[in-house]
């Protein structure tokens, strides 16, 4: 009997000793990453967080790839003959599936990804202690500039979009606002950013926005709203004011290669590199490159998903230089059938093997140093360059009735291309503001074709608002036969967003 009691006691004792598992062990830390609570503590965290907003330029929904399809190919400068029909359909107003990732949703998502990152910096950095409070102000200013930049383009494309100004949580259902309200926020962010951004960065920090870049963005957003006075004020800063430290580079081509980046003409430039060979996702070694050239390069060289309308070639040949030669900007703007004949350049080292009425975008192409493309172009993208600013200044002056003053700025741009002064070449314009604007539209194409400004230009000029002007565009770009006035001036909002956010309505007529 005694034995039994001993046995039972022993067993129960052992059992209990096994049972007392250490419940503390259940608190396992992730050995792979910092938690959000552990971050946003030091000034270095603030720098890293800020950098992550810049990293959004390298994503395929934005300035690495698909945004060019929206800005360049949807406009009358470009089009798509991609065998990927849906991709091509999204450059010609055949919007069927509003969730189409490459055509719509990814650009929407990436815009908000950038905004989320900016919102994190703007929410968390103010609580970080800095020994250099000036740097702290700069970081916040840079974040505001970048948030404004992404809201500007989102407002340009979809117009009526949700406004998110705080770090996101999974259950957010943000409220939709009108384009006007979006742009008001953009203005506010840019004005605040302007105050704390420097006029110039040191050599290690080129690529960050300056006061001039903030004013240039402000000018864009004011001009889009046809608020010419305010636009003029903003542009004054760059052209005649405190920030007038820009000039046109001698060689037009220097704006499109990696050989003379961040030059005197560059107002804001996306810094691309080829150091990292990853994807456009968030994985290790995520790329810091542009893939535009791979997608726009001619058939057999790149994916050839986008190309230039041939009317551009004709436009360049309308007027010769003062020496009677072809406008030299054509050479660096397009690959086209007589490129070799006209300028002695082959196309990626090849003779012309494409259609006799075909042309391909050359800006950003690396044919000057290789005969193919890949996903890792290091050529910086000059998002805003001084030539654009000068032409905008001219446009604003013209709109304000100062047409005579406007001439000189157009002439500065023309002079670099060895074109005669405008008044000399087109004396009939005189002080007729409408005629001046009509001419300016062509000047902008000749100088800026393929630089992603055409879509905002067409919208600003009102050319997409009447059937008559759309018909006129359709002469140059038959894709505009599909364009429905009042509808296609803005993109449809991705349908999943509309369905899952009660505070969001689909754009009119979609």
């Amino acid at each position, binding site marked *: 009997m005694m034995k039994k009691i001993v046995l039972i006691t022993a067993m129960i004792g052992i059992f209990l000793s096994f049972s007392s598992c250490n419940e503390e062990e*259940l608190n396992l830390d992730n050995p792979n990453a910092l938690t959000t609570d552990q971050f946003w503590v030091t000034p270095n965290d603030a720098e890293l967080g800020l950098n992550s907003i810049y990293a959004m330029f390298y994503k395929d929904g934005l300035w690495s790839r698909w945004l060019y399809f929206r800005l360049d190919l949807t406009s009358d400068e470009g089009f798509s003959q991609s065998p990927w029909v849906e991709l091509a359909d999204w450059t010609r107003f055949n919007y069927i599936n509003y969730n189409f990732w490459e055509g719509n949703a990814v650009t929407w998502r990436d815009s908000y990804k950038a905004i989320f990152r900016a919102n994190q910096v703007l929410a968390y950095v103010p609580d970080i202690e800095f020994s250099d409070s000036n740097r702290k102000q700069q970081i916040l200013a840079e974040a505001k500039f970048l948030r404004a930049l992404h809201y500007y383009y989102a407002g340009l494309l979809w117009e009526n979009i949700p406004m998110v100004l705080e770090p996101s949580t999974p259950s957010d259902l943000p409220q939709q606002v009108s384009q006007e309200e979006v742009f008001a926020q953009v203005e506010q962010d840019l004005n605040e950013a302007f105050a704390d951004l420097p006029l110039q960065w040191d050599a290690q*920090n080129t690529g960050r926005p300056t006061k001039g870049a903030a004013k240039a963005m402000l000018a864009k957003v004011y001009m889009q709203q046809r608020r010419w006075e305010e636009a003029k004020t903003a542009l004054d800063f760059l052209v005649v004011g405190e920030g007038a430290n820009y000039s046109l580079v001698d060689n037009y081509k220097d704006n499109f290669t990696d050989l003379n980046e961040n030059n005197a003409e560059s107002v804001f430039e996306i810094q691309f590199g080829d150091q990292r060979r990853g994807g456009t996702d968030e994985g290790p070694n995520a790329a810091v490159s542009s893939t535009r050239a791979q997608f726009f390069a001619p058939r057999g060289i790149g994916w050839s998903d986008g190309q230039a309308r041939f009317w551009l070639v004709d436009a360049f040949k309308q007027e010769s230089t003062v020496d009677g030669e072809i406008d030299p900007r054509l050479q660096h703007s397009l690959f086209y059938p007589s490129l070799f004949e006209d300028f002695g350049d082959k196309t990626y080292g090849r003779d012309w093997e494409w259609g006799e009425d075909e042309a391909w975008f050359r800006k950003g192409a690396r044919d000057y140093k290789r005969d193919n493309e890949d996903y890792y172009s290091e050529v910086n993208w000059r998002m805003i360059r001084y030539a654009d600013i000068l032409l905008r200044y001219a446009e604003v002056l013209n709109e304000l009735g100062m047409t005579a003053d406007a001439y000189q700025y157009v002439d500065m741009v023309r002079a670099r291309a060895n074109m005669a002064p405008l008044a000399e070449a087109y004396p009939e314009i005189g002080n007729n503001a409408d005629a001046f604007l009509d001419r300016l539209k062509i000047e902008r194409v000749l100088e800026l074709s393929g630089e992603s400004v055409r879509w905002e230009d067409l919208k600003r000029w009102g050319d997409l608002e009447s059937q008559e002007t759309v018909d006129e565009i359709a002469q140059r770009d038959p894709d505009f036969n599909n364009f429905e006035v009042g509808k296609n001036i803005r993109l449809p909002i991705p*349908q999943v967003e509309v369905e899952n956010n009660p505070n969001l309505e689909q754009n009119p007529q979609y």
Partner: protein
Amino acid sequence: MRTKLRFEFKLSVFLIFFTLSLQSMQAQNSEITGTVTTTEGKPIPFVNVILKGTSTGTSADMDGNYAISAPADGTLVFSYIGYATREIAINGQTEINVNLAEDLAALDEVVVVGYGTQQKKDLTSAVSVVDSEQISKRQTTTVAESLQGLASGVNVRGGGQPGQEARIEIRGLKNLQGSNPLYVIDGLVTTANRDFNPNDIESIQILKDAAAAAIYGSRAANGVIIITTKKGKQGPLKVTVSSKMSITDIPRYDLASQEEFVRLNNMAYDNGGVPRQELDLSVNTDWQEEVFRTGLIQDQNVSFSGGGENSSYFISGNYFGNKGTVISTDFDRISFRVNSSGEKGIFSIGENLALSNAKTDEIGGSDGFRGNPFFDVVRLFPTIPVYDEDNPGGYGYGKSGVANVFAANPVALANLIDQESENFRIRGNVWAEIDPFPWLNYRFNFGYETSFDEYLYLRREGNWTLNQPYEPSFTNQNRAQSETILFENTLTFKKEFGKHNLSLLVGTTYQKNKYEQINGLKRNLLINPNTGEYFDVLDLGDQAQVGGFRNESLLLSYLGRLEYNFDDRYLLNAVLRRDGSSRFSDANKWSNFPSVSLGWRLSNESFFNSETISDLKLRASYGELGSGNIGNYEYQGFINTFGAIVLGDGQTLYPSATQVRLANSELRWETLKQTNIGFDMGLLDNKLQLTGDYFIAKTEDVLFGFPILLSTGNDGGNPISNAATVENRGFELSASYTEQVNDDFNFNASVNFTRLRNELVSLGNGLNESIQGNTITKSGEPVGMWYVLQTDGLFQSQEEINNYTNSEGDVIQPNALPGDIRFKDVNDDGQITNADKTVVSSPWPDFEMGFNASAEYKNFDFSMNWIGSFGAEIYNGFRSVVDRFDDDSNYRAGIQPWTPENPNTDFPRIVRGTTLNSRGDSDRWLEDGSFIRLKYVGIGYNIPESAIKSIGFDKARISLSAQNIITITDYQGLDPEFSNPNIFQRGVDFGSYPNVQNYSLGVEIGF
């Protein structure tokens, strides 16, 4: 270190215990002898003879003779597999001769129910037992595949890719993270993946309802499959050698010949107003011939087993090789197992250990559906050559203006890319038991599993598709180790008090999982000039990238079970498990999972008197199970530090960091609440057995990462949330009939039937519905219903187009031409938009069936197994590619597109470059996926003992069998039986690897 210490501590405690218990009690015993025979008087060897209520026992010898020492007032229990157990009171006799009846019905079968066993007749919950013989007959890679059609309520979908693991779903889709059940192999919670040798299986039990599975608590929501591996039996060494060789074939598409292709392609271009491409008519490639081949599977198995009075052993070795039916696909497995056990007095100990090495070689996939051989062979034109010197790497593919197609050349992929994964796994457990009293058992189980994984990807220079950007050679490799450590302690009290039979189990478990990986990548690999091959080691090359990660999780549990049986009439079973998981935040780590089940054996009531019904039991159960089947650290938000930016005149790289993926800090356990009502009935002396169950399983707080708004800026996966409630209701019935007609002939036929209705009760996160691809998931409907535009025939004339208007008189499809598809304008807004999509049909079958039949006549045996699935609608991805014509591909042979001359067809006008007729989101691509399939048929012949005895064999058997050779279906794709891992798009057959047809020859020898 802590873990190791604990283990040592536990061992030392054992030793103390062991010594203590050696001096166990003795009583006044006498020697009893006798012979055990069949009812016909033939001796039965090796029958177990146990003194009832003790662990004292022995086995009969070869001739059925036994001897046991037992008290005069005791009772002896005689049991042997295949015979009805008998209990005989000793009553002072010293010689007891017994005969045992053959037990075809096997009602007394012992069922493993997790941390213990029960007799099948005492079950109060839904448990299916699968005959291991049925499993070993088939030629399968994983256990799951071999369960197909053998149990009701168990849905299995395999695939023919070598090494592919079948999808298994028990009683429907209960959550949205994955349907895999919990596998418990010899007490170790693990996965029965492809590196487990199905030949080692002794028995399989499937715990289907919550009451049965509750003992596994938080991991059992998808059901539990308990696998027991073979043990040695008392007797001399038995050697079994078996060899199976199979030839496998893949079903093929009926594609257009070169001539037909050219005619149709030109027609599509002409209709689209696009200049024809300059097809290379000098080439005529049969891409299926280039890519598909006859496969070969071999399964070589040898086992050694035996045992003495107090010990047993089982050793097996296996080689399984599968040369795939697609070029450059292979699977090889070598496995080895040792199971042994021994006992002395009240102490017993045993171990199960399996080692395996599995290796798969896959055809190198690239991106999207390019790189899937089942799409590439149909997209590539017959006019594209396999090899083309002009292309980098030398392979043929699309060419602008000549062959406008972006399909990848599978031959190029096979040769330019190597993709191999290999893993070496050790899986095993050691257990020890002490039975200090007949009514008390203590069991300690230590389980350990580790796998060493290797992955190699080598990309050689060269292209496989049109317009491909240049990519240098590179290799990407990883090495990983996974590790699971399990400690379990259970205490079982079992006692009879008159008619009251009570059993109580309490226990604790501790399970820790770890997975670690390091990986590296190098580009621009060197070529060895001697072999022309690349150096595929990470030393050579440039642009190195390295990475690595580690995942850990821990589960602590307390468990308890009460079984109560009154007079074999009233049965009660109650379980409580409490689980704590590291995967949830502190507030939500712990949860309880209770269950209760009741049974009533009507047939044992005195008032029950039936000639035909020999056994009848009613069962009812309710239980709650959990699921925490999510990533290890989902409730926390993390900082992604992978990014970088370029800044400065020197274009210098600087790092970046931010939160990319959002997280839900309030995640909690998902809970499955299941009610089950069932009956078990035996008729005609249990020759006919019926089992029926009705269940309602409701899963609340389903953990899933439903898409959140894109405007949150979230990336890297949707954050997991407790997002939905899903309900499955179903009815299962199985019937089997067994008849021993005479000594030479017996047969068995069984049928099982499953009807299941899945319903999404609600979606959380404020969502009303979730649209994924062509499916919609919304409350009140099953998950993933087809949500597409409806087609309504073809327009035959311009007049029909003009007359096709909405109620306002607007022409709905003004741009259509005769021959184009008419779509239904569901919302009557005068145009065809996304708003016209409706729920048109279901990807879920109405019901599924399995039918099995077997017969034995003299030395011949025959068996077959049919499965059937009825009423599911399938999206035919193949047709959506080859019938579209807006984008080029090869086409189906014999299609009759609409032309003015050929208007009597349902195939629309074919037009290059417009998606009008080819849009993927219409019901044009949906097809009835019902099918009946002869899954297995085989005959075997056992060479008569007389012929083989002389050469020393006990058993020699030859078998011939075939799998998947007859399929009755209207489905136009390759195989209506496929699995799509995307839960919402389960019915989308988009390049799924079809099941292979398989012809096998098997030889088995035992001595």
